[in-house]
């Protein structure tokens, strides 16, 4: 029979090829729900996980199966970037290293840093959970009285107006002694009405050119003349 040597040859060939194939490994993992993602059914069915290697031929893409799992078949040795392509949730990127003897090491990775900057090591059947949900929309802000009231400028204005209206009443309610003291204090205060140059400024007199009795003290007035 001539077919027997052929069978032997092919099996020998297979044995020879074996060391090449054996190191291509399967990488598996799954999406785990967390407080950001309550249920796997919230994920869009079209979402994928991709494993990017040095060339496009080495790269793999897997859908997310109904149980959240994903699988990359026959991954050759090399260093890969694992990314979850999802519109609705943000997932961290991972670095997956496959050594020539088929060992799979999974690390966190920091995009924007050099590739050798690895994060903490993670177990191989990869469990990955979203870090944040996508927020697609801006809610247009309508008129909101509470929001208006919480504005600090508005609060200051309200306190000031309140003070202005309440102060005379408080002064009226004081007992005569303290009231007298308060009024005296006000009189001596720099800002009190008598001493305030702005309040006592005689506009008509100034325009008429006559000197003001309160003016001589201030250098300003004399300069203007």
């Amino acid at each position, binding site marked *: 029979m001539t077919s027997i040597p052929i069978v032997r040859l092919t099996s020998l060939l297979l044995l020879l090829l074996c060391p090449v194939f054996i190191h291509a490994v399967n990488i598996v993992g799954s999406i785990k729900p967390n407080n950001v993602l309550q249920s796997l059914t919230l994920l869009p069915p079209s979402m994928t996980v991709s494993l*990017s290697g040095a060339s496009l*031929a080495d790269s793999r893409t897997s*859908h*997310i*199966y109904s149980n959240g799992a994903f699988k990359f078949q026959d991954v050759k040795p090399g260093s890969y970037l694992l990314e979850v392509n999802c*519109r609705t949730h943000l997932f961290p990127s991972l670095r997956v290293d496959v050594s020539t003897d088929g060992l799979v090491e999974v690390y966190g990775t920091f995009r924007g840093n050099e590739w050798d900057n690895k994060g903490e090591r993670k177990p191989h059947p990869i469990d990955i959970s979203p870090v*944040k949900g*996508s927020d697609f929309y801006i809610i*247009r802000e309508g008129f909101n009285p509470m929001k208006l009231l919480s504005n600090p400028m508005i609060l200051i204005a309200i306190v000031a107006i309140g003070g202005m209206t309440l102060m005379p009443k408080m002064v009226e309610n004081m007992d005569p002694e303290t009231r007298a003291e308060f009024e005296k204090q006000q009189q001596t205060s720099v800002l009190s009405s008598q001493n305030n140059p702005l309040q006592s400024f005689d506009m008509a007199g100034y325009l008429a050119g006559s000197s003001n009795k309160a003016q001589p003290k201030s250098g300003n007035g004399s300069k203007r003349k």
Partner: protein
Amino acid sequence: MWLWHNPLRYFLLAGALLSSSCQAVFSDEAFHTDFQVQLFGTALDPSSTFFHQAAAGKTGSLLYTLSNRLVIGAINPKDGAQVWRQRLGEGTVSESEELSKSAWLRKSKDGRIVSVFDKAIALWDAATGRAVWEYSASVTVADVITLKAENLLVVALKGGEVKAIKLESGEIAWETLVGEGRDVASNFNFVDDRLFLTLSEPAATALKTVVISPATGAQLETFIDGVFSQSDTHVFTPQILPITAFKDSDQLKLNTLGTKQTKSLGVDSTVHEYRLHAVTHDTLFIEYWAKSPDSATSWADFHTIKDGVVTKKISLPYENAISVFSLSDSGSGIFATRVNRAEIRIYDTESENQVKAFELPKMLPAEPLHVVAEVVRRSDGAIAVRAAVTLADGNMILVRNDQVVWTRQEALASAVAAEFVDVHEVEDTLEKTLHAEEASNLVTAYIKRVTRHIQELKYLPGWIAGFQESILGIFGPAAPADAAVTKDPFGYRKFVVLVTRFGWVTAIDTANRGEVVWTINLGKTKILEKDIKGIFHFGKGVVLVVLTSGDIYKIDAITGRGLKKTAIQILPSANVMTVESPTSDDRWIIAVPVREGVKGWFWPDDKEEELTKALSKATLSRKCEGSTGICGYSAKPTLGGRLILTPTWSFRLPPNQKVVSINTRPAHDPIASIGKVLGDRSVMYKYVNPHLALLIASASSTSSIYLYLLDTVSGAVLHSSVQTNVDITRPIVATIAENWYVYSFYSNSDARGTQLVVTDFYASATKNDPARLLQQNFSSYDQTRSTSPYGISQAFIFPHPITSLATTTTRQGITTRAVLLSVPKLGSLLAINKRTLEPRRPVGREPTAEEKEEGLFKYEPYLGVDHGRASLSHIRDLVGIEKIITTPSLLESTSIVVGWGIDIFGTRTNPSEAFDVLGRGFNKLALIGSVLAVGVGTLFLRPMVRKKQIGQRWAQ
């Protein structure tokens, strides 16, 4: 330090960065200002389109399909709405490939369907469209079969490997190698619990059939029938039949499995095509049609198979017209459905006379390509039919009895070219009338204006009525934006005219959710991307479709009327462009052949003097012969529509570099400000040049890409740069506008992943130096090396591959640009503001107060786009957006964006926010209310204030 290494922090940071300058979608505008035409593409093959129950025990079935764009999914047959979609394969498919031989969709068990494309097999949940498992084989898949009793999916690979995959888990149950890896497997048949695999030996002297045990994979028997010859090829045979079919040029041969019995049917396969249908193991139905549309014929035969003997039972009438057949069995008997443009006829297996005919109320717009039908005979004997018909124009319709229930515009998924047409340009005649008045002398102008005003008086009553309405409208709810279809003050309404592979031209309306406005046939059955030179907007609502064959179609883009069909002689490799007259409305298209020393063409071939004027200052540029670079020519028109081309410059690439793309600034790209004011009030002058071209070349030997910025008038290289460690097999895309370009590629360097690089060009590296920008006669010809622009670059890492880049355009160019990115892995169209892609962002330090004032913020290498906020398509799932086109609206703030490829997505975007239009949030009632409140308050306070003032006067 740990904080730096928290991935969450990166995301939050990225989100914070983008929220500052992104154009997120307002929740009340989403789904109102944007539209999406969800498409599958044209159904590929009738065996991959079927009605199927989505879940076991559920009544009502969905329509499943696999398209020519490799999209699978489910359609609700009631209204034609999409239930779910998934894309097979990793992107674009070459057009010439015979997809129906490598991709198919089959029913499986328990509400599952199985898809195959090349080496990939996937099992999908038929109701939700979620993958159950995926398997990728080492070589191309030859056939798959679901064994329901064993719960297995058996896969035959081309090389003869057979694998059984457990339906539930996707694990391999058994595998075996048939034929020692030398034979080529073709198809499975499952008859009487025996699994037959038909193979052909490499020498092709015998038809080989192997019986495989479904449970263990053991090879039980091998049959070799010496009838299969070198010229024979396998024909797709339904798996339930106990026969396998193959053919040579004039015979269709049916071999009964496990026997030497072969029946030959005489069919001249150079003239006729045929397709085998079966729904039960004892009835074979063969459909025949003519290969050439000129000699349209169609007929079909019923054969019965009994004890392995095939006998012809009846022949359905031969017709000299195109009709397509479908076979169905829905429990009430086997029926054949025959569809042509006018009617649907139902035949049973007993007679050659139809049992029922439904005449369609209107002829179908095109001939049918194939059909899948369900026929039910009710208890009272009445026959009802539901047929999903794929038409030659690429669309799919569903016919119920004699009514067309819905039409899906699936041809749009096969668009090869698209162009915007401005509807306003046609309607806006007032401007021209005013110009005409200006041009004439005072008296005639006055008379003209008065007569025009008198004529316009007739619009007055209508205007008053409308005015009243708009006043009343203030108090009502805000008018929905959809009402803008008829009244379009902001120029949101544009038509997108698309040419499809099926030889039709279709226009869709961006203001009406992408509804088809008109569609016309070019009289070609197939237009591939290489067959079309382009679609050109020719002014005044006219578009020109120019084919490689030299055919020119002039179409009124508003009404869809074909205005003129003409043909000029164009070399297939010629470059076609439009030229506009600087003084009049005239336009020409010109074709510049790639071969040296050949004259070019122009059309229309009149007004040579005008064209001479238009071309006198221009330089035409195109790819050099053999795509080795760019060559520039000056052109001089001569009589007879020919152009004399004189080479003026050429830019040749080194031999190891290949052209990836040539990008030029958009036709409408105004620069509003020639300088950029910095925080210290000094100015950086932009490098303004309308003749910029960015040539990207790649070299596989060095894994590098080379970027050359050229002046297309003088051919001068203004700037060049190199990126090393580039994976040139992945998409390299670019966009150029104003004084900057952005490009994207996949890098294998330390900063691994997709990179996005932005380069801005300024007239000079020093501030307040306009270089020669302000000179009166600024010419491309007198550029010296020392005056080449000053370029600043910054690169960003982007998390996903980008397959298309574009820039927003606005009317005056005042609004900040946004760079638009098509990210197919997310199924989104993203927009990144140019202020984020600003190469002057401070690196490694916080911005100074001056830089902050300018709007700069700290550079972060990772452009972690917050998918949500940067997404123009928000929650929508876009499939296969390959090209993005933009056009300005009448509002400066707004640019209209349409992405096409498979889906069509359209929206309008305001990169600098809507500063010139009131948004939906504007509350007219609140405005009027507050004005009234202030008025009432004034009236109320007036006497009080007056009283107080008088009191004060008296007190003094």
